[in-house]
């Protein structure tokens, strides 16, 4: 009846708008700039899928057991992926920021972790 | 033959009730705004610092939690100790207990430095320590009181009331003792005393019973439900005993702190040199919170107005006591080198100042509003209170 029809209408509208959004590229696709040459620690598909779990596993090893291997270290990720222009993985077209903005997933890491790599001449920021 | 009591939910004109809810929405909204403000900018916008780490939100929250454990006393008197006079108000007592605890916990959770990690707080528990188990204590209290409350209202479950009540009673004891020992086992000079456990049991009984009586009087006035003088007289005596016990333990605690040489300095601070803390201790906790109510209550004939006034004074005195305990206890510095005068760039050795900020107070009041809203909604939704409270209770307990 009235309510039923209203529910169906709003469901159709919701689906339609989502489809339209995808079709019209209203949400800009993330800009992925690889500034430094070379390979990442795993292949792209694995990194996209697994990087949250890799980071979560590594952080427990590092914080609680003092295991500081460089392979899955967040510091190393930032060191390699920081934009050459801004020096950070955040900000516009930042490596982490642009994908996370597109996927609308909150980036909690850089509340505490530095988003810029350590300066190579040893000076601290 | 005594008529069996008919329990009925709050009725009355809708408009008046919606106006009440609109009034309660004000502290809730202000509390929510304060929470988002504090969460967005960080605790820099509050009056708290690295010296006073728990501020006004904790004053309200601990008061609400302590009052919650005590508000259950009347229900326990009815269902565990067989005092059938209180049976008609047992559901109200249980509900107020749950509502106050919910309000207190809400304020605690919202005052976290990382409140976005609330889920972590309840899922990752550090089982190594008894203090961390208080999350389980809170949850268990809510569950056991909830079950008891359900058994009270559900006629088919009435015969299981006693075991449910005994479980709730044990959990109540565990929770209030645990909360007291959070301070009692703390090394700060103003804490560090096992007396905090029985003292908080006495405080909780006084504050919770006072709040129960106030709500009972208010609800019965709202709908002109008659309340017998006998019931009020017994509640008055109960409150008098609890306030007397609170006074006893407070005096015992303060005088023992003063007597022992190792804690004499902090006792002198609280009792004489503490400025606002001394004023709140004598005038607030002891004067308004204990002596004045006792003067009102320890008479044979107490009018309802006097009873309500005594209850309100006990609540105000309770807030003063929480301020002295929480803020005063932190204002007095940690002593690293007994017998020596300390000073540092990190404010060792000095009394730490504190000014409550507006967001903190609003957050605390939001918790109070939350508890009140729960009571208001529950009274309207559930048949918790009898239509008449002026008959002798039936044989059921």
């Amino acid at each position, binding site marked *: 009846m009235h309510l039923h029809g209203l529910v169906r209408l709003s469901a159709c509208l919701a689906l339609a708008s989502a489809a339209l959004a995808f079709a019209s590229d209203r949400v800009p696709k993330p800009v992925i700039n690889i500034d430094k040459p070379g390979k990442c620690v795993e292949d792209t598909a694995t990194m996209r899928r697994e990087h949250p779990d890799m980071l979560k596993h590594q952080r427990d090893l590092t914080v609680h057991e003092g295991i*500081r291997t460089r392979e899955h270290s967040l510091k190393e990720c930032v060191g390699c992926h920081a934009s050459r222009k801004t020096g950070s993985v955040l900000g516009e077209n930042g490596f982490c920021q642009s994908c996370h903005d597109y996927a609308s997933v909150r980036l909690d890491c850089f*509340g*505490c972790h530095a988003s810029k790599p350590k300066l190579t001449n040893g000076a601290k920021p | 033959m005594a008529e069996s009591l008919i329990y009925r939910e709050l009725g009355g004109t809708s408009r008046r009730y919606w106006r009440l809810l609109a009034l309660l929405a004000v502290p809730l909204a202000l509390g929510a705004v304060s929470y988002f403000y504090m969460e967005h900018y960080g605790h820099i916008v509050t009056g708290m610092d690295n010296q006073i780490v728990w501020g006004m939100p904790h004053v309200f929250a601990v008061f609400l939690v302590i009052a919650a454990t005590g508000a259950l006393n009347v229900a326990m008197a009815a269902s565990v100790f067989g005092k059938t006079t209180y049976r008609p108000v047992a559901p109200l007592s249980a509900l107020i207990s749950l509502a106050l605890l919910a309000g207190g916990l809400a304020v605690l959770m919202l005052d976290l430095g990382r409140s976005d990690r609330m889920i972590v707080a309840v899922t990752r*528990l550090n089982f190594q320590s008894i203090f961390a188990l208080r999350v389980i204590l809170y949850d268990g209290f809510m569950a056991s009181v909830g079950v008891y409350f359900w058994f009270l209202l559900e006629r088919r479950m009435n015969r299981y009331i006693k075991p449910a009540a005994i479980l709730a009673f044990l959990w109540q004891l565990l929770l209030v003792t645990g909360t007291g020992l959070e301070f009692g086992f703390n090394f700060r000079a103003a804490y560090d005393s096992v007396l905090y456990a029985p003292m908080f049991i006495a405080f909780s009984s006084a504050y919770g019973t006072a709040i129960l009586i106030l709500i009972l009087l208010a609800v019965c006035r709202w709908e002109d439900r008659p309340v017998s003088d006998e019931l009020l007289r017994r509640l008055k005596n109960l409150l008098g005993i609890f306030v007397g016990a609170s006074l006893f333990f407070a005096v015992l605690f303060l005088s023992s702190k003063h007597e022992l040489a190792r804690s004499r300095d902090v006792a002198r601070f609280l009792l004489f040199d503490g400025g606002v803390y001394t004023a709140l201790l004598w005038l607030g906790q002891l004067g308004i919170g204990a002596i004045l109510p006792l003067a009102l209550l320890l008479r044979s004939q107490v009018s309802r107005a006097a009873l309500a006034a005594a209850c309100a004074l006990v609540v105000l005195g309770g807030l003063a006591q929480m301020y002295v305990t929480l803020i005063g206890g932190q204002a007095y510095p940690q002593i690293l080198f007994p017998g020596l005068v300390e000073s540092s760039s990190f404010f060792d050795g000095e009394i730490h100042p504190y000014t409550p900020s507006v967001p903190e107070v609003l957050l605390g009041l939001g918790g109070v509003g939350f508890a009140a809203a729960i009571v208001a909604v529950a009274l309207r939704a559930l048949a918790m209170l009898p239509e008449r409270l002026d008959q002798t209770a039936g044989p059921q307990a």
Partner: protein
Amino acid sequence: MSTDANEALSRRGFLAISAATLGGVMLAPGIRLIEIAGARAPEQAVSRQVRWGLLIDTNKCAPGCDDCVKACATENGIKDTGHPRTDAQWIRKVELKDLRSGRTHSVPVMCQHCEHPPCVDVCPTGASFKRADGIVLVDRHTCIGCRYCMMACPYKARSIVFQEITDQNPDVPRGNGCAEGCTLCVHRIDHDRQPACVEACTRAGHNAMIFGDLNDPQSEIAQRVAKYASTHIRADLKLNPGVRYQGL
């Protein structure tokens, strides 16, 4: 009878096997731990064999000298925001005066890295924890900012971050709302370096602070602790801190 004899044999056999297994299980970690007592590779976990500690000779601590404090702030990215009441101070110099004798004294105080840390006891999420090698740390991934550890610590060692931080030192993550305190420069220790405060004190020539493994009888700190009297702050609390003081 024969069945009893059979049972007795198998019981004995069972006991023998379990004893051997138990012995093996108990010995095996010991053998592994002896291996680790030397310098630790990055992929090895920390172990209880080591207990890091500090020995501070306050007789060599000049009042007004704050080399250790400045070095800590620089190393850990702690900036002065102009609000001393809410700014973190992981180490501070406490100036002491004995009113009866008139003696004045200066003591650097930081997280004491207790063996029985009250902050670990009260942390509801287990974010405040003691690493196997004795360093007491805050796991900021789990910290909810309840400040219970700050209430519980008798040394006022913990602070909380009151506002958002940017430009952290990549080696020392720090963030809004989380509790924090002296980490004994764990990011340096794990790479066989000294804490920043000790290094600064030594470099300036005061030599008031020694860092080392209290469990290693060959280390300088263990030898000094065995030879000269040293004590803890608030030893009456029986927390057995890893930081020891001389000249208190």
